[in-house]
């Protein structure tokens, strides 16, 4: 009898363990694909995957966060259609709100929020001048709060990089931020195997190169 109970408990726990593992496994594989993604189509795929995980794990902030992130990247890659870019960002914002509500980790959500604002602005900078102030403010706040986060520095760098030189922007002014971000990425204890946000290294390398 005792033996049967032990076996029963073991099966049950393995079932629970399995479910837990399944989440980690799905996240892990999704993240691997995320960091390998290059084209818009890849990101669409990965956004769908994260969304599916997010739907099942409604209580976890990370899947919600990655849906928001994937859609933000999509809006940046889609060069043709203003409307669909805005639509993607609407979706990103929707999922970021979910992540904000679930997580006590405000660091990454604040930074992603700045990234979303920036993406929105970049869709059509000429016509969105008023959101420029809001965007700049969100980015400056993010860097001020988390000076040691590589992503905050990266986004700040991008903002300065694309700002016209007569407004105090340009590659030269942006370079220090990419340099800081590079150092922070290199010293980041997070690895690609962790579920914690790790994105931005390649983008940072790309911009660093542009500054040389």
């Amino acid at each position, binding site marked *: 009898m005792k033996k049967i109970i032990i*076996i029963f408990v*073991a*099966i049950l726990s*393995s*079932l629970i363990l*399995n479910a837990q593992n*399944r989440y980690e496994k*799905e996240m892990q594989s999704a993240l691997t694909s995320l960091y390998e993604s290059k084209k*818009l*189509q890849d990101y*669409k*795929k990965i956004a*769908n*995957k994260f*969304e*599916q*995980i997010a*739907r*099942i794990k409604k209580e976890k902030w990370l899947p919600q966060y990655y849906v928001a992130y994937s859609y933000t990247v999509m809006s940046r890659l889609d060069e043709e*259609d*203003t*409307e*669909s870019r*805005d*639509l*993607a960002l609407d*979706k990103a914002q929707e999922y970021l709100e979910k992540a904000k509500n679930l997580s006590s980790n405000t660091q990454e959500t604040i930074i992603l929020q700045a990234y979303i604002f920036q993406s*929105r602005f970049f869709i*059509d900078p*000429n*016509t*969105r*001048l*008023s*959101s*420029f*102030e*809001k*965007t*700049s*403010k969100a980015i*400056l706040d993010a860097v001020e709060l988390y000076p040691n986060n590589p992503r905050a520095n990266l986004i700040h760098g991008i903002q300065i990089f694309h700002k*016209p*030189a*007569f*407004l*105090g922007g*340009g590659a030269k002014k942006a370079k220090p931020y990419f340099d800081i971000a590079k150092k922070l990425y290199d010293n980041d204890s997070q690895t690609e195997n962790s579920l914690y946000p790790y994105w931005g290294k390649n983008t940072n390398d790309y911009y660093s190169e542009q500054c040389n």
Partner: protein
Amino acid sequence: MLFIIIANSFLTLTAQTHISGDIKNTKGLPLDGANIYIKDSYDGATSDVEGKFNFETSTTGTQILVVQYLGYNSVEKSIDLSKNNNNLSFILMEDTSSLEPVVLIAGSFDASDEKKAVVFKPMDIATTASASGDIYGALSTLPGSQTVGEEGRLFVRGGEAYEAKTHIDGLQVDVPYLYRLQDIPTRGRFSPLLFSGTMFSTGGYSAEYGQALSSVLLLTTNGIPSEDKINISLYSLGLGLSQTKVLKKSAYILSLDYSNFKPYFNVIPQITAWKKPPESFYSTLAFVTETKNDGLNKTLISYNRDESKILYPYYGYDQPNTLISLLNNNVFIKNSHKQYITDRTKIHTGISFNYDKTLIELDTIAIDDKLISSQLKTALTTRFSNKIELSYGGDLFYKNYKETITIISDESDFIFKDFQGALFAEAQFSPSPKLAFRLGVRGEYSNTLNSSKIMPRISLAYKINKYSQFSSAYGIFNQNPEFQYLKFTDKLDPETANHFILNYQYKNKNRVFRVEGYYKKYDNLVTYITENINSEDNYQNNGFGYAKGIDIFYRDSETIKNGNFWFSYSFLDTEKLYKDFVNSATPSFFSKHNFSFVYKQWISKINSHIGMTYTFASGRPYFDPNKPNELFLSDKTKNYNNLSINYAYDMSNIAKFPVTFYASVNNVLGSKNIFGYKNAFNTNSNSYDLIPIQPQADRFYLIALFITLNK
């Protein structure tokens, strides 16, 4: 132990079922990137460019398959996994709730810098070639308003300049233009850079606004800037300095400007004989504070001093020119506050103060015009649901106008004082994203004129499909007569206009096409006889008239990369019997056909922005007193042509600090334009001489350097 291994492997090695198919929209086009998944499982896939998908699932039995695509309605389908689930076909319908809701646009050009639905943007004003940085100059390239070269003010749909009112953050600006003598064009007092939003309405506007027969221009000042900076501008007419300072939850922007036309007029000859070319000093302080509950408090203080002297010819007489000197001092102060007072109700309050004093001296005559006015405003907006919104509030105005005319030492005063009160309520219903309508009413009372007016306003919009919509508006608009009449008599009634507007708009991405037809009926216009100018009974509300026409606008910022252009054409048919008219006629300001083409291009290779504006207007009527009364205002000037260009060059890379070079030429081709004719009796020939009214010079040049210093 064995059990556990078996159990584990059983769980991971369950049977896999294959699912495949394709996804299209209602037009039969494949949807690439759609999400297909088994509900409440991790199993799913993304469709490829051909809309095809396939994946394996470990789930069994009857499951729900969900197909999802951004901007489309999701589809759910129950599937039995024991059967064949290959080659499933799905057709997705576009989600109409993601449709941009229909907007009430009849009569309005919105340039609020919001995410969507923008036709005209604040930046457009600063970069329109013919405008030379003037808000009103840029707006005159839009349909419905027209260029009146010797005025520089806004003339909207057969309405005179005084019929168009400017509001800053909801508060009326009584004297928005610089003071200029007759036949010399003016410009706006306020720099376009002060504002983040511009809403230009050419008719049918909301009940929130009154005291304007034709048009309102609603300007919204900037919010809190993001960083400190100092801007320096050096231009051929003067220099400007502005400092932006961001504090904890607030910011201020202080600007000082000085301009003097003297050096310019020394180089470029003008037809007017200037004794003292215009010299102006201009300063503004804008202070913005964030308050609790999403509140924003904005203060604007502006002071402007402007002085000039000209030698004015005595037409028709053999006398030397007379010296006319002009000195204007203007103060505008306003504070406005916006915040949520409950979850659903937003309050907007404001208070403003205008002070304007103009002193004109010629020979032994001195005319001293002084206006002191103030406005108190409260407006609330309550949102009951997505479908119903109610706005309500009121205004209190105080006006105190005094003109003192001194001839040698004989002084006479002409005074007009008035308290006005207004209440408005307006409900907006949007039963579906396709339909919206607004019903409003405004009541105005004027103490001195002893008049009360009730004005209904109605606006309606219906969306035909994703890209096109119809809108229409109707309203009654009243405006008290100008001080130039009220100073002689207060026995006048407000003038009245009724607007009927029908609008069609097509908007796809960054292309906008719109056509608007309108009919405007004027009543109670002030009439008088020039000979008895001082007599009180001379002024009556006996005038009337109409204006009707079609405005066409096409704007495209999609076709040309980094470039955009717009066309506007206005057809105007208007006649009035007002002022001292002997017959009903088209007033001398208005041309039948107006056409503008504006083009702007950013060329990143050479860090340059180029722009051009071409404006055409058919001839304007003028009065030849040598002809009989039946031919009153029946002559027409020749057509008006103006091609203007501008060029901005970002030379930061060369200069090693942020600096932009700017140059513009108005009327590059030097077309000899004639705005109209004045007349003067010639005692020698015993007939009237016609004197052409012309631009001050054929061309106008502007060169500038803009420098920005951060921190």
